[in-house]
């Protein structure tokens, strides 16, 4: 489990976060995060998409303000008001998406930020850049237009820019995501040279291997919460395999505050309720396809789909729900084939889908709660008659659902976009479970919810299974899957690479499948 650092080595922390919290409409992006950043260290922030890494960086670089907690710099509490304030505090950030003006030259970009009435002193700048870049082995052509540089070169320009500003802390946000393997190795070497000169580096990544290779200290974020830290002493005492194991345990292991494992009991009934055979979906521009997906789910069974985000989970859910065309394969629900049916037809047969994109796809944010309950029945009697909305009937049913699912809203007329993520999720569950649900697909159902709502949603899913429905639970949170699934399948690049029955040792086996090792 997490080793907390009691005696930070060497110099004291330059930046310290205490209980920092940041909320966005519907989600908690950072939940009471503590972090210490020391000079001479590469501090790796590891976490999956949506773990809250970028939000944390946004607050350190002055782009966003925390809703709670404190940021201490050199021991004194500071509110970082703006990017220029962050720079003056010595915090330089290289963002995931580069922050250079493509139409300007490198020199002009480096000169940005000077006082506006002055002329940019390009020759003076050239000298300083040479002083900084040469010892680091960076070669920069100051006269090149930024749009002509490779992404790796642009990144080097940004690092040099941060150093030009006398940064003491350099933050690299997903810096390797656009680099070639060679570029990544070079960046690693460069970071090493920088920390040897006493700089502090925060290196953000979702790649486990990079954390192990480059980090002096590793902090793991998961769904907005910090779930563990490996101190430099501990890190040095481990070999690479042991280190990877320890990080895997943190990323996928148990977490304080999680609910206990409780797998809903089910009658010994092996009849398949939902059967998917040989499902193929072709890949599109940025999304992976699906390759020969086959599985069955029985009555009252919860099948979990584990995997690193972006490996085809959303495509699987959408193909089943009828939102995405399958190239071939068949889906059978309770003996009836769903092939060829559209979204409405599948819903009619009892297949329901709860999207992870609650605000964008699941609801219409500006519509009242009441209409959002019945979005999928618009125009149908008895809620609509001859195309006219029956306000009384809709209102009555919406009030009833509010009570039944404990939705906290000022009124049924409130636009749903103003509710918290947990309440929006409840509305969606209520809607999808209505009349005749037989199988329910959940895609990341607790993403962005606070702990109380997370636990409530998990219990709701267990209850659904107890009623005899088939549940497909897609989640990037392995702990969540382990807490309620009967079986867990692992998806990787659009294929199911293995299925593990839940129980003793399942966590390790699934975790290894997820990072591409044999179970």
């Amino acid at each position, binding site marked *: 489990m997490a080793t907390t650092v009691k005696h930070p080595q060497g110099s004291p922390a330059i930046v310290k976060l205490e209980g920092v919290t940041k909320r966005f409409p519907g989600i908690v992006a950072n939940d009471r995060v503590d972090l210490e950043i020391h000079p001479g260290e590469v501090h790796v922030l590891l976490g999956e998409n949506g773990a809250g890494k970028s939000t944390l960086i*946004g607050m350190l*670089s002055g*782009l*966003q303000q925390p809703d709670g907690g404190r940021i201490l710099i050199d021991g004194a509490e500071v509110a970082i008001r*703006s*990017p*220029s304030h962050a*720079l*003056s505090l010595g915090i330089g*950030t290289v*963002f995931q998406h580069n*922050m*250079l*003006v*493509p*139409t*300007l030259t490198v020199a*002009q*970009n480096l*000169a*940005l*930020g*000077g*006082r*506006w*009435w*002055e*002329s*940019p002193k390009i020759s003076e700048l050239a000298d300083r850049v040479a002083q900084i870049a040469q010892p680091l082995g960076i070669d920069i052509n100051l006269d090149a237009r930024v749009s002509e540089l490779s992404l790796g070169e642009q990144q080097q320009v940004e690092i040099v*820019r941060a150093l030009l*500003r006398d940064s003491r802390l350099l933050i690299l946000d997903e810096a390797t995501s656009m680099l070639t393997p060679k570029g990544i190795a070079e960046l690693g070497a460069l970071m090493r040279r920088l920390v040897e000169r006493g700089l502090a580096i925060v290196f953000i990544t979702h790649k486990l291997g990079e954390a192990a290779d480059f980090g002096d200290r590793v902090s793991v974020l998961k769904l907005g919460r910090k779930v563990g830290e490996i101190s430099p002493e501990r890190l040095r005492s481990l070999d690479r395999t042991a280190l990877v194991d320890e990080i895997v345990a943190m990323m996928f292991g148990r977490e304080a505050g999680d609910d206990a494992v409780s797998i809903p009991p089910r009658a010994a009934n092996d009849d398949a309720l939902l059967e998917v055979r040989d499902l193929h979906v072709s890949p599109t521009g940025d999304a992976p396809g699906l390759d020969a997906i086959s599985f069955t789910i029985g009555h009252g069974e919860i099948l979990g789909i584990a995997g690193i985000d972006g490996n085809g989970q959303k495509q699987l859910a959408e193909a089943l729900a009828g939102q995405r065309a399958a190239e071939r394969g068949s889906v059978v629900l309770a003996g009836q084939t769903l092939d060829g049916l559209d979204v409405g037809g599948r819903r009619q047969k009892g297949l329901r889908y709860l999207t992870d994109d609650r605000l964008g796809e699941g609801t219409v944010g500006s519509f009242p709660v009441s209409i959002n309950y019945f979005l999928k029945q618009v125009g149908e009697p008895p809620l609509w008659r001859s195309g006219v909305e029956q306000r009384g009937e809709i209102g009555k049913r919406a009030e009833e659902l509010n009570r039944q699912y404990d939705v906290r809203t000022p009124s049924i007329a409130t636009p749903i976009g103003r509710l918290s993520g947990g309440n929006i999720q409840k509305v969606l569950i209520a809607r999808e479970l209505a009349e005749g649900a037989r199988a329910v697909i959940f895609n990341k159902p607790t993403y962005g919810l606070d702990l109380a709502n997370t636990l409530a949603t998990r219990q709701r899913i267990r209850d659904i299974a107890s009623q005899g429905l088939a549940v497909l639970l897609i989640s990037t949170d392995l702990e969540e899957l382990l807490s309620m699934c009967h079986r867990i399948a692992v998806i990787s690049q659009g294929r199911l690479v293995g299925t593990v029955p839940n129980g003793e040792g399942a966590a390790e086996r699934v975790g290894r499948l997820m990072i591409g090792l044999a179970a």
Partner: protein
Amino acid sequence: MSGFFSETFLAALLFGAVTAAIPLLLAGLGEQMSEKAGVLNIGIEGMMITGAYLGFVGAYYSGSFWLGFLSGAAGGVAVAALMALLCVRIGLNQIVIGIALTLGFEGLTALLHHFQFSKSYPRLGAVQVTPIPLLESIPIIGPALFRQHLIVYLSIAMVGLMVWIYRRTQLGLNLQAAGDKPAALDVAGIDVIRTRTIAVLFTGGMAGLGGAFLANVGAGLFIPFITNGAGFLGIVLAMLARGRPVWVLAGALIFGVCLSMTTAAQVAGVNIPTDVIQMLPFLAVMAMLVLFGRRASLPAALGIPYERGVR
């Protein structure tokens, strides 16, 4: 038709062209800075008409053209301040606010003029020209270009000043960054809102000055709606010029010639309906758009209000 090619006719045509071009030049240079910084300033017509009105009033009561120009520019800046507040600071839609400012101030100036002068249209005195020795005696070109009010020379000199600002100063860099990638400017530690505000206020000043010139020098009086789309022509010029001040000058002169033709052709008694002749400048706009408009590259963030931390 022989009158078309007489020396006096050509000189008058050219003189008229320069007079007509200056307001367009000023508006175009002003708009160019806003657009560079990422603000599509549709309200420029409203800034110009305000400049024309206040410029005229200033000159009429003080008797000084210079005080007229000053009050015109100040009027333009005042309207621009409103635009900057609404569109840059609060981040409202630039097109809607721009149209509102244009219509609002066209109406307001017409109303004020009506209360003040009723149906009389008082005129200012003759324009005081500053001839440039030697150059003024060149045939045709001399009287057209080098026997003008001092503000004409200053306006043309503005082109050089703008080139210098964009190419050589920190401000020029900041403006371009604010239009092409405001987030990059922000993380470099420069306030995007402030940079854009400076650009919009500058546009207002230039448009106001252009309006004052239009009323005081071009017409010698104020008539409601006198700008008649000159601000919009400024927007067209700024878009076609792709960030280059010299191109604004060239475009303004082309439009100036067309505008001047409408008067000159009528004076020369060309047997074409005046309505057709008056269409000339707008035909020129369309021709220029067809020829150059497709290649016009606008700043990436043009028209998009900047809000920090929004992805």
